[in-house]
């Protein structure tokens, strides 16, 4: 099975206080650590699992600067065969432009399946995967947490709301956006990443893909960003752990829980 997996490098912001930059439209990224987008880690692992199970070839693709090659090397270390970075050539991009660029870069490749994460940790838009599928004329399904290969199709498990999953048969070639928890992404060591440096990593400029200025035009604009409004919030309890424990037991009893 020929599989392409799309990955993105994002800032790690858990337990980090974000600071808004001077433009008021973005955050200060100096000092932030960068990681592979959480959902994309699951997508890479799923691609490798499919390859290990039924054979094939996995190509990892990202759109970004040279620093972003770090996530391609991680994908290569996990087991991808080769990688492509589409250089932004200094342009600002949005989801649709990224989808067009990836579609142009992989045009003509033998292809059965494209995997992306459900969304990216940073802009949380969840659009690139499905847009890419539409541009390429692939079948698609969003929010997938299980894949079972069949002849000419895949049986997929789509995560709906309220603990309900939908089982759906999707014809190949297809694109699936992968939900977290579908597998357990394998650990890669620094040594593993170093070894994978031998694998092919090709760079193509977005300006070399034959896209017109109209193709590269942005559809939306962030006018401003702001921190979440402070809403009422919790009554904060204070004291040492024993005092806190007594206070919490007291609250539970008052609220009718027999403790």
């Amino acid at each position, binding site marked *: 099975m020929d599989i392409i997996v799309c990955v993105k490098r994002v800032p790690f*912001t858990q*337990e980090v206080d974000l600071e808004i930059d001077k433009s008021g439209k973005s*955050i200060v990224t100096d000092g932030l650590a960068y990681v592979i987008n959480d959902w994309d880690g699951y997508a890479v692992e799923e691609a490798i699992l499919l390859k290990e199970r039924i054979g094939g070839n996995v190509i990892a693709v990202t759109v970004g600067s040279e620093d972003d090659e770090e996530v391609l090397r991680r994908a290569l270390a996990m087991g991808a065969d080769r990688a492509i970075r589409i250089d932004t050539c200094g342009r600002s991009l949005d*989801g649709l432009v990224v989808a067009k660029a990836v579609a142009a870069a992989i045009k003509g490749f033998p292809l059965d399946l494209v995997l992306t994460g459900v969304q990216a*940790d*940073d*802009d*949380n*838009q*969840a*659009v690139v*995967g*499905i*847009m890419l599928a*539409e541009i390429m004329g692939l*079948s*698609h*399904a969003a*929010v997938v947490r299980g894949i079972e290969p069949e002849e000419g199709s895949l*049986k997929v498990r789509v*995560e*709906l*709301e*309220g*603990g*309900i*999953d*939908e*089982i*759906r*048969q999707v*014809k190949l070639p297809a694109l699936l*956006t992968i939900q*977290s*928890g579908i597998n*357990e992404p394998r650990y890669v060591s620094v040594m593993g990443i170093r070894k994978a440096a031998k694998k092919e990593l090709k760079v193509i400029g977005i300006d070399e893909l034959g896209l017109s200025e109209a193709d590269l*035009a942005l*559809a*939306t*604009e962030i*006018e401003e*960003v*702001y921190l*979440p409004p402070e*809403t*009422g*919030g*919790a*009554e*904060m309890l204070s004291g040492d*752990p024993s005092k*806190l424990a*007594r206070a*919490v*037991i007291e*609250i*539970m009893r008052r*609220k009718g*829980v027999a*403790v």
Partner: protein
Amino acid sequence: MGDILVFVEHRSVSLREVSLQIISKADELATKLAGRLTAVVLAAKADFLPSDFSSRADRLIVVEDERFSDFDFTAAAEVISKIIKEQSPHLVMMGHTPWGMDLGPALSVRTGLPLSTDCVDITLDGTRVKTVRQLYGGKLFARVSFRDDSKGCIITVRPGSFPVAASCGRKGELVRIENAANLPASSSRFIEYLDTGAGEIDITQAELLVSIGRGVGEKERIEEIRELAGLLGGVVSCSRPVVDRGWLPKYHQVGTSGKSVKPKVYLALGISGAFQHVAGIAGAGTVIAVNKDKKAPIFRVADYGVVEDLFAFSDALKEELGK
């Protein structure tokens, strides 16, 4: 000008709450825009709609076909993009649900209309539509505008963002479209729904939930929380990261993709409070949150907050209970 089109979702012959939320917001926007509100219902048979539903839209476009008994992307995208092209609405709205996440970006590519996803608010600047959405998992809000919305725009709305209006007093003209037979062959086929919520325990019936999040750190330490829950007479539940890591089975999960719960007391230990989780505890009587990060979003929705390491707190609680 100013017309709004809403895609209505249903599942297992039942209208989905998110569609009522969206149509309520659409009613407010259509009134301000002096435009017509159209609801599109694709179903095998649209007899599940509540009797007052037609009063929520000026026009109800109903397409009945066996293929619409469940979500059929190919057929739905074909019908809706055709309606968009014929009617050129100012704004197209649908839920940021697993189906809307499939449909929204696809319709944007097919119709050329710009898209803003997972919006938590929609405002008007004159007749121009602007959205509010979250970045970095809710750590930041963004106000977003469309660069060229002269031909319209598409918005997917986060479930739970808007209340359901009592009634809207529109005239509800029914339009049936009968040409569903000409639809292209589907690229996917619905097989069945599976309930992942069935398990040894039922967290929806518990009076006290002792709920753990990513902060628990490792699977081995969950046993300590089980002991605590045992002493308190409560049931262990959790947030998504705990299930994603395979530390607890899915039937323990509280939130949008898990269960909505309604305990008298919800004790959240090491849960940051992502919106998907918080949506599942709206029915809880009292929420007590314990987190060592004093800026954790869970403190914005909890009734009581404790800034402490969850295991230090758990140990203290066990000691007090043992006295």
